[in-house]
């Protein structure tokens, strides 16, 4: 794509009357697979609908793939595929007909739309079932059809609203693998989810929302470095912990051991310095990984 960011948001606010769905949001999202994380009501779906130009922001601006969805909604929608969270399938059509129709709605000529419909349903694992009526499909199969209709027209950006919602554990794993695979085909993805492990398994970048506010927008790969460190000393555990506490780190002492953090790479340096200052012998120092959930909860508390 050669674009530095697929989504640019600046000072964006959107309200539904008295309810503020998104408040003063500013962020940039690079190409790749991005997770939009937040609890129900955090503003994820509002964000996706703003990106499609289906809602208009109260203030601020947004650019999707270089276009403003408010002034050029059709230009954005021509390049974007959208998988809604809600049911969106006509029960009286076959999967092949519906996906082909979805391609034609995006401007693909009829013959090519039929061909791409077959290929896309093959890709999502529904080649055998493509001539069955959608009313006869299971939830997992319906989710796959929803994904197929979103990618059939070869979009540059895919917006997935809770793609694994309602799936059993096996279906969830398969759906996430499929999304990961789309990323390998250089399709940019922004997927919303309130299930943090789904985001951890699938995404390169994460945007965290809480009550319409931005908690964090950044790469996922650095998150584990923000974990806690388990420290075991020969003596003076309480004193070392107190000095670290004085430097702003959380510490919990259990006998000769204490847990410090979370913190970045400077944390280990601080532990060494304080232990040395008190002449306490360091037995071991182990960094634990931080889950996205830890980070989300922690940042939510801080906000």
């Amino acid at each position, binding site marked *: 794509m050669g674009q530095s960011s697929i989504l640019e948001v600046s000072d964006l606010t959107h309200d539904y009357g008295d309810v503020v769905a998104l408040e003063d949001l500013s962020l940039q999202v690079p190409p790749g697979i991005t997770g939009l994380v937040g609890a129900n009501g955090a503003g994820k779906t509002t964000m996706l609908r703003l990106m499609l130009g289906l809602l208009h922001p109260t203030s601020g601006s947004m650019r999707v793939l270089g276009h403003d969805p408010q002034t050029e909604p059709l230009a954005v929608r021509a390049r974007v595929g959208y998988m809604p969270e809600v049911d969106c399938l006509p029960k009286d059509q076959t999967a092949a007909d519906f996906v082909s129709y979805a391609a034609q709605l995006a401007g693909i000529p009829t013959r090519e739309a039929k061909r791409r419909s077959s290929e896309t349903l093959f890709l999502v694992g529904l080649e055998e079932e493509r001539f069955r009526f959608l009313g006869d499909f299971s939830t997992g199969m319906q989710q796959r059809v929803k994904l197929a209709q979103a*990618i059939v027209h070869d979009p540059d950006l895919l917006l997935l609203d809770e793609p694994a919602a309602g799936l059993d554990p096996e279906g969830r794993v398969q759906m996430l693998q499929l999304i990961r695979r789309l990323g390998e085909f250089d399709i940019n993805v922004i997927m919303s989810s309130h299930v943090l492990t789904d985001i951890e398994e699938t995404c390169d970048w994460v945007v965290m929302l809480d009550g319409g506010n931005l908690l964090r927008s950044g790469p996922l790969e650095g998150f584990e470095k923000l974990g806690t460190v388990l420290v075991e000393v020969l003596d003076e555990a309480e004193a070392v912990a107190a000095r670290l506490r004085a430097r702003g780190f959380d510490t919990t002492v259990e006998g000769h051991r204490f847990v410090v953090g979370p913190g970045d790479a400077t944390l280990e340096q601080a532990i060494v310095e304080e232990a040395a200052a008190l002449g306490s012998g360091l037995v071991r120092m182990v960094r634990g990984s931080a889950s996205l959930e830890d980070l989300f909860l922690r940042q939510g508390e801080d906000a």
Partner: protein
Amino acid sequence: MTDQVIFDRGYRTYDGPRTGRWGAKSAVYKDGIRRILGLRRKAMLKIIPWGLLSVALIAAAVFVGIHWAIGNIEESLREGIPTYGGLFDFYSAISLLFMTLAGPLLLIPDRSRGVLSVYFSRPLTVDGYLVSKVGAFVTVVAAIYIVPQVVLHIGLALIASEGFLPYMGETLDVLWKVPMVTLAFVVLNGAIVFILSALIDRTGIAAAAFFGLLIAGGPIAARVAEAPFQGARWASLLAFDQHPRIIRDALFEDTIDYPAELAGFGVWTSLAVVVVVVVAAVVIVRRRYRKLA
């Protein structure tokens, strides 16, 4: 043991032409026609539309046959058998049933099944979507009026005592009168069924409301119009099914007294009612869908 090969077609990008907004509208239009006629749907969904279409076509052929049979006995007796204008009543009954089915079917499932979220994530505006749906509706319903009339016209020309071409020449006015009356029927009834289908979220209830309004609305409006209070005559205009017939009678010079005519209104009032209902439909349906989008 044979060698097994796992063949993965992967994902293919698309670099071909894109038809843009026009393609999206065209897709909605074609899908609308398929949905009304039950094409590429389960067999059950084909029975009613194709049954009604068959009845309309067979009726046209039967009327030609009656004209031919009666004409063989006594040419003057054919005067009493209905032709173009008179047959509108018969086709209206069929098309009323058809519209009862088609209107709700075109609009409601897209809303109730959430398919609108797919439509409006594509390069398609609310107006584009609605215009395409109206186009599909008008195409199929107008065909129910016009195709049997064409069969009738050609049939009558073939059995005409003066010959095919002279008959066609003498009845050139039919070529504009039939489409005009068709337009009045389709536009007025279509506007009503679209309003109801936009406001009601259950296909069966919307269909019943439309059918009930047109069937029961006439007698009720006529009764109210006769009531002894000032301005009661205006209620006669609410018998919506009479207005296309009043327009038809004006064009085909038939004389049947409808409630509005008895209340002192003329064909121009009926035309005005058609226009008002259509404008109301445009405003109500657009507003409803703009909120949904």
